[in-house]
């Protein structure tokens, strides 16, 4: 249904999208995952014929985006990041306008609009001005606009951004309900969202394709390892004895944690009032929490906190990009992380802009 080959978008100073190739089969929901500025929106804009690629080609529903943009546009429903609604229009009026410019036949228009409003649960606000609707409603109006002409392909740019958790759940349900009839590409920078909605995932960072895989494969690949957050503090008496030398304590704890069986690496996160926080990553398939706790206690330190943390997108990128080109990732361990401030802020590969 969608075939992308070597798609590239170059601007004067930077490359927004760099030779991306992938395919999406009919009826699939594909998640387009990447941090902000990775090139998701640019790729989508090229697929929707909003802007032409610098290089490469793409085919949507059997039509080339450069050769027959009109045919592509007829078969695509697109929801940009901010819903393209006219605040002064009433919902039903807006859908009428969109229906006409999308070429929905006049005869079935009223019925189709009713159908779509039903599907997106906006029938109760049909006579309201869009500008006066809540953000969740506006997003759904945007979505109804995208599906109005019953397109083969739906392209949704961050469909849940800026919504509250309840609205996010509703929107996800709605999108899941649309699968089957439509082939859907949706972009997001939230991993659970992909897990919740998509069958396949395409990960890009800095304009490059990092991975494309089924969601099941990806999560098993990533969740085999465990990330544990540990906060350790020296006992009060021993602080006095050590002459409150934070650095010594820090490296002692770091060493101790690294020696625990099953630990693959230890990242120092932050120090506050002589309490040190670390993120410890396990080797594939190892439970390390009991061992970590024992190691800390046996060394005579206070264990303030110990809990398992999910992988953040940054860390996934760190992992995935590390698999691809290890030379670009910062060396693990204390030397890479500044003493104050978290590892996320230190500009790992996910911070593409």
């Amino acid at each position, binding site marked *: 249904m969608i075939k992308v080959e070597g798609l590239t978008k170059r601007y004067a100073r930077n490359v927004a999208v760099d030779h991306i190739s992938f395919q999406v089969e009919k009826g699939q929901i594909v998640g387009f995952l990447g941090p902000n500025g990775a090139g998701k929106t640019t790729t989508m804009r090229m697929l929707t014929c909003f802007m*032409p690629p610098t290089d490469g080609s793409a085919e949507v529903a059997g039509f080339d985006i450069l050769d027959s943009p*009109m045919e592509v546009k*007829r078969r695509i429903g*697109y929801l*940009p990041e901010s819903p*393209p609604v*006219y605040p002064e*229009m009433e919902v039903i009026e807006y859908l009428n306008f969109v229906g006409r*410019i*999308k070429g929905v036949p006049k005869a079935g228009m009223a019925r189709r609009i009713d159908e779509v409003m039903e599907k997106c649960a906006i029938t109760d606000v049909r006579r309201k001005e869009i500008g006066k609707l809540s953000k969740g409603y506006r997003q759904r109006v945007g979505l109804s606009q995208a599906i109005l002409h019953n397109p083969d392909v739906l392209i949704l740019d961050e469909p849940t951004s800026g919504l509250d958790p309840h609205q996010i759940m509703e929107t996800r349900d709605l999108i899941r309900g649309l699968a089957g009839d439509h082939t859907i590409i949706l972009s997001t920078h939230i991993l659970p969202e992909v897990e919740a909605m998509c069958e396949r995932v395409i990960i890009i960072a800095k304009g490059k394709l990092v991975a494309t895989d089924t969601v099941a494969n990806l999560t098993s690949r990533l969740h085999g390892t465990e990330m544990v957050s540990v906060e350790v503090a020296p006992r009060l008496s021993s602080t006095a004895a050590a002459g409150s030398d934070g650095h010594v304590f820090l490296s002692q704890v770091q060493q101790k944690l690294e020696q625990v069986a099953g630990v693959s690496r230890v990242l120092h996160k932050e120090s506050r009032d002589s309490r040190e926080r670390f993120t410890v990553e396990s080797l594939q398939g190892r439970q390390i929490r009991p061992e970590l706790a024992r190691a800390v206690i046996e060394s005579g330190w206070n264990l303030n906190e110990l809990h398992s943390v999910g992988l953040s997108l940054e860390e996934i990128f760190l992992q995935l990009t590390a698999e691809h080109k290890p030379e670009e990732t910062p060396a693990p361990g204390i030397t890479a992380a500044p003493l104050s401030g978290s590892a996320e802020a230190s500009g790992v590969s996910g911070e593409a802009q």
Partner: protein
Amino acid sequence: MNVLTICRKELSSYFRSPIAYGVMFFFALIAGYFFYVATYSFVTQGLRAAMMGQSQPMDVNDYVVRGLLSNIGVIGLFMTPMITMRLFAEEKRTGTIELLVTSPLHDYEIILGKWLAALILYAAMLGISLINLLTLYLYGRPAWKPLLIGYLGLLLQGGCMLAIGSFISACTRNQIVACVGGFGINLMLWVVGWVASLDSSTLTHVVGYLSIVDHIDSFSKGVLDSKDAFFFLSFIFLGLFLTGRAMESIRWRA
């Protein structure tokens, strides 16, 4: 068909924002003032002429209509940027331009639709000023053909300014910039006519020819000069063509 859809949408958003009402109000006010002044001086001069015993009657078309028409054109210079400023800039700012561009519409349909809506609004404003002139028929019998041709000229001239305004609006996402830019260009196109009176070299002639105000003279005299009509039409075409280029630039600029 698509042109009309876009046009209708633009018109309805004009009348839902205060812009249309504000612009029409001030246009009516200023045009009404000019009409009052023109008729007042015509009447007093007529009276004086009658008292001096001049038998030759004064022509309403010459004294009132002609001057008034070119004045209305000048008001248009100030008002048209306010009509066109939001056409594209607003859609670019809110992102609705993405809806239009990714819909199966040709660029020219979007541009023509928007320009047509602006032209209809301008025509409505001219219509208001026409009401003033029609009151002259209560007291006299001014020739109606020059009046009609004069208004046709105003409409064409307005079309030019609206096409330029569309172009400026398509270049920016800021309405204020679009308004000021359009106003500046309109002003330029007005004052370049003045250089023509400096000397008679080819350069001043060419530059002076660009003045959109001067080309309305023949119309307000009641002469339908194909040369001036052609000037206006090609000017409109150029403006809309540039709008198309500017719209396309959205696609290769970030």
